[in-house]
């Protein structure tokens, strides 16, 4: 089954205005030129290699800057196909790439003409996608319970958003689909998603849009479309993620600290797919397993050649040789 990755670099060059809590590492890079931290390169490689191993071809949508960077670090040849024209062209439009950094991705999704899988670059699928994920209208990674800053209600929407009216029937209490993995089986759903996204991101120049709004244009509106059209959705896991969890190991559960994952009543545990979504670790960078990922790429995938050329990997080689 064909998957796509998207790396749209235009948001990077407006990183001082960039929305999205997952971008703290990027915002903190003291560089006017395009760069990515080591761990992002490593988990992108793993996402590609695991997909190819278990599922099939993978295509990259990026732009000239992204392709140049991926080429330098030997990622470009890992893809079965690469397109830079589509996003180069999209970058010339007046889309606010800092506020709506996922627009490049949604444009690429809308460009597809047959069922496919979209993977975030930090989404690592560790087994073959089974047949049940390829029926129904859509398969998502999992559902999320919105909470904290990204949680809004009608009153907040109407007081902070001026360029579009309140979305009729939008229910802020419903779960939101996590979009790190999307298997689109129904392309009508995809068309509706694209139209809604375009409608929501069409702002006047210099309009100030609050931080929480981008997530509505990406995940929130997809959930709304699913419910309004009664689309049938599968998930890679039965577990539901809680936004803004504050208890990693369960030790503080007794005093009401919130954990990340919750299992609903009567889960269908026969439908669970092994995956690793780096996601929250992107923010919590001390938990990153960069050396382990490096070792996995070198040993399990026999891809030492990816790290031979650039001095960026010297420290990983030292760690590798000291521990093997």
């Amino acid at each position: 089954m064909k998957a796509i990755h998207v790396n749209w670099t235009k948001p990077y060059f407006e990183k001082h205005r960039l929305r999205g809590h997952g971008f703290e590492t990027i915002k903190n890079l003291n560089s006017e030129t395009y760069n990515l931290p080591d761990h992002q390169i490593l988990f992108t490689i793993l996402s590609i290699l695991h997909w190819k191993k278990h599922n099939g071809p993978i295509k990259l949508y990026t732009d000239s800057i992204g392709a140049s960077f991926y080429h330098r670090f030997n990622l470009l040849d890992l893809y079965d196909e690469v397109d830079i024209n589509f996003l180069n062209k999209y970058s010339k439009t007046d889309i606010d790439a800092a506020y709506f950094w996922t627009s490049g991705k949604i444009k690429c999704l809308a460009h597809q003409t047959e069922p496919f899988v979209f993977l975030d670059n930090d989404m690592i699928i560790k087994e073959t996608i089974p047949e049940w994920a390829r029926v129904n209208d859509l398969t998502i990674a999992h559902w999320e319970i919105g909470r904290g800053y990204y949680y809004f209600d009608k009153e907040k929407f109407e007081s902070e958003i001026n360029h579009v009216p309140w979305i009729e029937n939008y229910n802020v209490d419903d779960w939101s689909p996590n979009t790190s993995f999307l298997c689109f089986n129904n392309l009508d759903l995809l068309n509706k998603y694209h139209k809604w996204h375009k409608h929501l991101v069409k702002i006047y120049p210099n309009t100030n849009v609050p931080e929480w709004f981008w997530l509505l244009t990406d995940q929130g509106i997809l959930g709304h479309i699913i419910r309004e059209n009664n689309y049938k959705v599968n998930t890679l896991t039965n577990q539901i993620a809680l936004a803004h969890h504050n208890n990693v190991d369960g030790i503080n559960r007794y005093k009401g600290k919130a954990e990340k994952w919750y299992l609903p009543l009567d889960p269908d545990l026969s439908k669970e797919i092994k995956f690793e979504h780096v996601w929250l670790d992107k923010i919590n960078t001390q938990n990153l397993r960069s050396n382990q990922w490096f070792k996995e790429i070198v040993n399990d995938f026999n891809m030492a050649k990816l790290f031979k050329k650039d001095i960026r990997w010297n420290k990983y080689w030292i760690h590798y040789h000291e521990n093997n």
Partner: protein
Amino acid sequence: MKIIRVLWGNDVNYEVPKLPLFPEHEIVYCFDYESFWFVKNKGYKAHLVKEDLFKGGKINNFGRKLQALDLSLKKYKEVLLLDWDCYILKPLDKKFYNSLKQKPIQIPLYIQHKDTKQAIIETLPKSQSKSFIKELDLLEEGFHKYGWQWDDGIVAPNFGFVYCRDINFGEKLLQIAIKENLTSVVDEFATLLYVNCTLEEYIQQYLPTVLKGRSDQMLIYDCRLHEVSRKFSKWLDTKIKIKPYFEHV
């Protein structure tokens, strides 16, 4: 402006990206059929050079860059010749193009240690081939003969990035290279003979402000070559403000 790439020898084929990174602007000059079809199959627009003036293998293959520069300037009038390991780092905006307008010929600088051959060998794995050692002898000889002495090093233009809108520049360099029977980095030595000026004058007249000849990011080792390169890079920073759009690794 066209972006010119050159397949000047077999060693660079592995550096060619699987698709053109600048699809509307990129042209590749090739010197044999295999290379021509190799890049055509990847989607590049390519020219096959009819007469190869530099058939001496690694002794003078860099001269092919001069041929490509000459041919492309005659055809396209304004070009940016880029090595395959010269990576774009940010969108080419108005500031970039304005910086190119400042000088009709722009080529960055780099430095080799005055003990050129040994200083390079120190940075490489042991047991290099005899032919490579011979190439380093020629490099050292040329740097000492044509380059600018600076501290413990010798400075030369770096042909990894060449901006030019002087359509006779390539031809003049070619004439110099052939007349002087240049070897090793033929392109860079020819440029040194062409400019015939002091290092300070070169900086004023020819140095671009959009990259360094050798990326600072690569200068991490505790060795003579990287030491003198770091020192030279810092000195250059005092002479001219460089805002990188490209990185030559």
